[in-house]
């Protein structure tokens, strides 16, 4: 839809607040980060020296950085896959419920309203090796749970915490998608001799694929960039580097390690990744998967 404004300045005036917010909170700091990526600064910010691409060269030759890239990949795809699978399963179940459907749906949406850090703390308490009920239960069945020591367990913990929050969001979209599928299609398939699982994989799942693809990208973006709070509240990137994702490493190197130049260079790399994902999103999702 396009609207015609007789005055030239009015549309700009209406856009101004959003443009200001974007400029002050995004463009300016982003510009600073890009600038900083080419300097080496001392820990107190008193002096700095232009080093060109040294920060990037150091980054791409550091095995630690590639380790964090791998961690990010494992983490993101686990979160996205788990989040989509569980949410789809819940949505299919909730779609079948007739009595009290609204109650189930509302309860399933709640976790989305919990702040990331709180979600992290919640799971951190549940899995705390010395007092967490889940950790104690696992101990009782002979599984020694200690995510402070065991890197794989730490990864599982952050994946669970991050996924839990995202399931509600995915659930909403899947439920809406399921409800948009006409009942008569499933009835026709039933008459055509397709059993429940054939109906799901042959009719429902393909018809949900636009929703699924959209959610896949959204979930990957979430896992890549939006899970700092969850990780900081549960494992702080540890033990060792086992849960240090790229975003967490930016924070850790910059504000803990005080290597501002490298941190800025990592931010620039992340910005490029975000830009790529946005392009993918616009290219394929705005056009949608068409039938």
């Amino acid at each position, binding site marked *: 839809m396009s609207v015609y404004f007789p005055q030239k300045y009015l549309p700009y005036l209406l856009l101004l607040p959003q443009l200001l917010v974007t400029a002050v909170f995004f463009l300016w700091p982003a510009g600073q980060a890009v600038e900083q990526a080419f300097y080496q600064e001392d820990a107190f910010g008193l002096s700095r020296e232009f080093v060109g691409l040294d920060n990037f060269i150091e980054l791409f030759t550091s095995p630690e950085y590639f380790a964090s890239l791998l961690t990010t990949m494992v983490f993101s795809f686990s979160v996205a896959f788990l989040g989509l699978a569980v949410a789809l399963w819940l949505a299919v179940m909730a779609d079948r419920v007739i009595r009290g459907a609204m109650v189930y749906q509302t309860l399933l949406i709640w976790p989305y309203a919990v702040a990331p850090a709180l979600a992290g703390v919640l799971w951190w308490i549940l899995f705390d090796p010395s007092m967490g009920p889940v950790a104690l239960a696992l101990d009782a069945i002979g599984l020694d749970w200690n995510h402070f020591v065991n890197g794989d367990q730490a990864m599982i913990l952050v994946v669970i915490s991050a996924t839990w929050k995202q399931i509600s969001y995915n659930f909403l979209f899947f439920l809406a998608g399921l409800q948009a599928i006409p009942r008569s299609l499933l*009835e026709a398939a039933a008459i055509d001799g397709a059993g429940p699982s054939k109906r799901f994989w042959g009719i429902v799942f393909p018809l949900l694929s636009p929703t699924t693809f959209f959610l896949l990208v959204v979930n990957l973006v979430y896992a890549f960039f939006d899970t700092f709070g969850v990780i900081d509240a549960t494992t702080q990137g540890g033990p060792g580097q086992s849960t240090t994702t790229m975003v967490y490493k930016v924070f850790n190197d910059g504000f803990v390690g005080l290597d501002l130049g490298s941190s800025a260079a990592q931010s620039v790399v992340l910005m490029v990744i975000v830009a790529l994902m946005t392009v993918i999103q616009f290219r394929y999702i705005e056009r949608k998967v068409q*039938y």
Partner: protein
Amino acid sequence: MSDLVLQNIGKTYSNGYQAIPSIDLTIEEGEFIVLVGPSGCGKSTLLRMVAGLEGISQGELLIKGDQVNNKEPADRDIAMVFQNYALYPHMTVYDNMAYGLKNRGVAKAEIATKVSAVAQMLGLEELLTRRPKQLSGGQRQRVAMGRAMVRDPKVFLFDEPLSNLDAKLRVQMRVEIRELQRKLGTTTLYVTHDQVEAMTLADRLVVLNKGHAEQIGTPMELYLRPASTFVAEFIGSPSMNLIPSRVEQGKLQLSVDIQLDCPHVSAQSVMFGIRPEHVDISPLDQADVPFIVKAVEALGAETLVHGVLQLGDGNTPAFIVRVAGHHHFEGGETLGLTLPSQAWHLFDAQTTKRIEA
């Protein structure tokens, strides 16, 4: 052997609502049966019960002698055409038609033969690789029928299949469906709310009202001898004129000067019915009853005159007259009507049932 038998079939929902109290219907092989009635009369529910998409609360449903009450839709050997066609949007026309056969484990070569035979019959050969989105309404309708036909089922079920089409296409598809059904000889149960569709398609009609069958019969039986005021009003367009009347001492009191002998009538209050096309316009001094014109609908081939009768007791019931050809009448004009007695219908006002002569 009868093809499809409904014995004392009823539907009561879990909340206690009785959608269909009890229906008995025996359908012979190759018959085209139309379930017709206003919305909410239970016609779709009944069809879906036959399809197995709705549970059957009471009674027995027999297809070719087998009791299928608790069989899955897929195991009843029926095929259904839905109102919105319910084509699988992510499959091509070919795959849509082949889906039911694939699920039943039919060999690929046999599927291809069957689909192409049906596609040829319906003129769909050019469209087999298209998706439903790329088809017009009429083409989708045809694919939906093809999907039903390709399985060669014992019974076809149609759920208002033409209501999403424009008027011209609807008439064309109506004729086509009738021809196809004759050619295939498949027993058919067809639901519609459109009485013209019902009259033109059916071997026999079932008029449903609030879940019970008001009358079952051929279109002409229903037109000539409607069993109740409901059928009288539902079949025929414009619908039959019905005027509340009394019978005193074996004579019908139409509150006009004519009094006719009807000694067989025991009821006191009756509904007097006559179809708009069976009324004649005559000079006022020879007429049975004067009629005041309110509005005229000229359709070219016929003229519908809406107005009121002027009865002796001061009642002015609404009345419609249908005259062949084009005529001119003024609003407010008084016409004389003769009501030939062989075209009369009498109904008991209490039970609404027909009083037989």
